[in-house]
């Protein structure tokens, strides 16, 4: 399986994520930040540690030992089983998203080394239709989990999915939640170690399936994580939401996260957890 040309697509996605120009405005502290400085910190604000978006490829470069990523199942491509159209045809939307992000769909999967330990790794990219899970994300993650089971590899999935299950593939997207969860259940039975890393945002059907099923659940600081969207909840209860609702810190407080891990420490934290669990 081919190792994709990492450098090209990294550049392309970086351009999209952090606007062009020397300076960028931080959504966390509203300060104007020198762009190079943020990039040197793996896209973290030097003033307030706000974690900016990183693409799936950048994430893999940050977490894995250099040059060790072997991509799996990059030949799986989305199609349009419902012939879905809202204001735009889903088939056209897919092409546009592919051109804009350089990805075939919202996830990358494969294997690589973390501090010389081989792992299976999957990442969802919130830039591609909000990182939502359709048939391709579901199938790639299921294959990833199954290979991790067969080869007794530790498993890491980094979620960045504000869109949950992808509406444009209807019920097929919903069923991916069950499919991946069933694969994880078998992986668990086989004694595998699964570390789920939640990043901004992880919502809906992604939060309500593989993202919540880690033996260990890590989250980046101040990420939005939850089942129902905050606007939906506000419309339902007709009250203001509590301060910090559905953030990583809120989930830690309520007992759903093992550790909040800053981006710069993620690789070491994963390596240490693998050491502890002996896999």
């Amino acid at each position, binding site marked *: 399986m081919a190792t994709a040309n990492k450098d090209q697509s990294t550049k392309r996605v970086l351009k999209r994520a952090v606007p062009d120009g020397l300076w960028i405005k931080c959504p966390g502290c509203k300060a104007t930040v020198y762009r190079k400085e943020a990039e040197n910190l793996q896209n973290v604000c030097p003033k307030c540690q706000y974690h900016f978006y990183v693409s799936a490829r950048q994430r893999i470069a940050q977490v894995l030992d250099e040059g060790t990523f072997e991509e799996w199942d990059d030949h799986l491509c989305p199609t349009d089983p419902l012939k879905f159209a809202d204001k735009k045809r889903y088939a056209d939307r897919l092409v546009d998203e592919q051109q804009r992000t350089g990805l075939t769909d919202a996830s990358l999967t494969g294997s690589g080394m973390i501090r010389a330990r081989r792992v299976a790794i999957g990442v969802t990219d919130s830039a591609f239709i909000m990182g939502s899970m359709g048939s391709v994300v579901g199938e790639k993650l299921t294959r990833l989990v199954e290979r991790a089971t067969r080869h007794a590899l530790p498993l890491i999935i980094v979620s960045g999915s504000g869109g949950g299950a992808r509406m444009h593939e209807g019920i097929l997207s*919903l069923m991916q939640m069950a499919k991946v969860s069933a694969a994880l259940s078998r992986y668990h039975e086989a004694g595998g170690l699964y570390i789920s890393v939640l990043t901004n945002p992880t919502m809906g059907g992604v939060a309500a399936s593989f993202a919540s099923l880690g033996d260990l659940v890590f989250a980046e600081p101040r990420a939005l994580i939850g089942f129902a969207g905050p606007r939906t909840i506000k419309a339902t209860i007709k009250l203001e939401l509590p301060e910090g609702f559905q953030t990583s810190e809120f989930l830690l407080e309520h007992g759903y996260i093992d550790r909040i891990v800053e981006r710069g420490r993620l690789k070491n934290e994963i390596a240490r957890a693998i050491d502890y669990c002996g896999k």
Partner: protein
Amino acid sequence: MRSPYEAAETCTAFIANPNATDLETMSSTLNGPDFEAGMLEIEAKIRELQAAGLRDESSEQQDLEQQIIDLRREWNRLTEEVYSNLSPWQIVQVARHKDRPYTKDYLNLAFEEFVELHGDKHFGDDRAMLTGFAKIDQYKVMVVGHQKGRTYKERASCNFGCAHPEGYRKAMSKMRLAEKYQMPIICFIDTPGAYPGVGAEERGQAQVIAESMFQMSQLKTPIICVVIGEGGSGGALGIGVGDRIGVLEFAYYSVISPEGCAGILWKSHEHAPKAADALRFTSKHLLELGVIDEVIEEPLGGAHRDHHKMAGRLKSYLVKTLEELKAQPVEQLLSQRYAKFRQMGVYLDGLQQDAAAATT
């Protein structure tokens, strides 16, 4: 998946209104969906004639009886026409009909006994999730089902079938109990979606739904899931992993409510009918997409017109399926359950296409 906010908003609209009796009278006089107008008119006429009946052998009475027969014939013709041409949005109206049979109705009509088991042993007893032992034909089973509630009071206490995390925890604990005694599990799915609220998020709504699917995929006992009304996204799937998935003819099962989808993609809830068309969530589509095993036919004019007949059909489906599943060794059951969900999804495989191109 997102949450069914239109439905949930309706929930709170009801809950927030303190004037319960008004609502009850209102909902009992509401005449149902507009596409039933012609049918309801005939039904009213029949009732009128029946009330005017002389109950004797007079020729007037015979004339009246003839009129009733003619009206019934006309009703049949019209209902067949209306119900064989329902749009997806109209099907949603049927699935949400206020008189549609709920889990509790089926427990009364299709089962010989129901022994309710309450509570999740952690936080509370979610009335939106009904669980307990039940007997059907010669089988002892565990029933787990969403309950929407019939009266205003019941609806409010059930949150209109929108379960909280304690509901899913309750379901999981009863299903584990069933597994321990090799008792088959029957899940009745009927929810607009899992409840979207502050407490639900605080108590791990996402985590419990994930955990439930994770567990159900490996429970060592047969599981039959039937969507009896609304199959609202994750809240439905949370009790939806089984060996057989049946769907009533006018139920629907969707990744998102049509209102929610319209709100996001068309920027307005008013476009719900368009979203309903696009989402392909009716029983016919679900069968075509390979996510369900069987469509259970409803009585003419929908399950809400004849609870007994519907319960009878549901019972035959359940008994027949229990018989099939009970005959299988549990290991085979589990590997087939895995394979069933494993094959769901539609995508292009570049390698297979290349291979196919190479051989032709």
